[in-house]
């Protein structure tokens, strides 16, 4: 069965390592914070100027001067730091953020990503997404494998305007975990109960299937 958004987040959390500084995008990526393994030191960076993002505040404890990049009220943790937006993107561009997780509308087999604009629809802006994808060494995309019409979002080439080129390293979709390699999407794991055939049929870009593909362990 396809994963729900919480399971996608949970699977992505398995990619975390002790000592990682991580930037989580809006949507499913934000949920990854809930699955950081106990005892593992992971510091969350919020690109509006905070390192060490804590949980949402309890009722009455919210501070309008303390929000995350999704404009949600949040809290700090012991060792948190505030800084301005230039330093924030400075640490992103200089590769100090170890992992970036973000959503996507389309990803190409070359690792191009489109997630900011749909021609003909109101454009909200790219926010920090273009900086993040152009800078991060390690980008995981959290996404649905297909759009609501059932069309693949893993493509030979993105149809939508790009956010960045050749940058996505790994995809965790509701159906599969895939690496983006020089030759295309390499299937690593299947969602529990999802067949390789289903993944093949729902992947429009070049898909590499080698050997037995294990089920994800969540």
């Amino acid at each position: 069965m396809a994963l729900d958004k919480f399971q996608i987040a949970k699977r992505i959390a398995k990619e975390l390592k002790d000592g990682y500084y991580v930037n989580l995008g809006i949507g499913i990526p934000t949920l990854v914070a809930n699955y950081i393994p106990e005892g593992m030191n992971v510091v969350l960076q919020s690109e509006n100027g905070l390192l060490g993002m804590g949980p949402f505040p309890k009722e009455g404890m919210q501070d309008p001067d303390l929000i995350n990049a999704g404009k949600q009220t949040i809290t700090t943790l012991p060792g948190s730091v505030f800084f301005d937006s230039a330093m924030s993107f400075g640490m992103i561009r200089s590769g100090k953020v170890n992992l970036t997780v973000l959503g996507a509308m389309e990803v190409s087999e070359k690792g191009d990503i489109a997630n900011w604009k749909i021609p003909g629809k109101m454009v909200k802006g790219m926010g920090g997404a273009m900086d993040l994808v152009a800078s991060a060494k390690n980008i995981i995309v959290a996404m649905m494998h297909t759009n609501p019409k059932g069309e693949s979002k893993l493509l030979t080439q993105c149809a939508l305007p790009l956010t960045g080129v050749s940058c996505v390293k790994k995809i965790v979709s509701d159906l599969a975990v895939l690496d983006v390699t020089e030759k295309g999407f390499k299937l690593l794991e299947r969602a529990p109960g999802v067949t390789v055939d289903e993944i093949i049929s729902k992947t429009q870009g070049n898909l590499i299937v080698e050997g037995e593909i294990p089920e994800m362990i969540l």
Partner: protein
Amino acid sequence: MNKIFKNAKEATADIKEGVTIMFGGFGLCGIPENCIASLVEMKVSNLTCISNNAGVDDFGIGLMLHQKQVKKMISSYVGENAEFERQLLSGELEVELIPQGTLATRCMAAGYGLPAIYTPAGVGTEVANGKEIRSFNGKDYLLEMAFDADFALVKAWKGDTLGNLIFKGTARNFNPLMAMAGKITIAEVEELLPAGELDPNEIHTPGIYVNRIFKGENYEKRIENLTLSK
């Protein structure tokens, strides 16, 4: 060298039609509420506004949009504003969208006397259209120019009579960067203290970058997206 103004009205009195203004803040966090209120009251129009966001329908820069005071908006994300969308689609409003880090760094460049920067953000996308691309150590970068703004309006937590500023929490965001980048920088602060009351090690924006300072009033500090844990 008196930098102290009585209020927003006095501090912004010479902001004229057609100028370029930077606004500190991210979302509604750390925005110069008093200065915006004054501009709304002045009805000064035809403005080019540089701000990460464009406020919401009934707060922040949204209030200026409602009065059609904005000719052009330069932002990274403008998604919370129906009037904005209407004006954009009808062609009344020009919009230039810029990656957030590029926006921040172009402000810093202006304040640091760097005429331009190279950033990888936007390479291979429509943001790169018409821009110079240059490769350093095998990676491509876009040349992006430092901003040139007539005024910068910023909001700080504490300030002193010499214009030194300290920001609080994530209300810092673009404020210290824009404070450095305005030809004339106007700071509104929650607390205005005599020189010497701020620890010189803790000041975020040195007063040399601030031309005018005043104590703001009636801060609403609206929360855009209240999210609580159980």
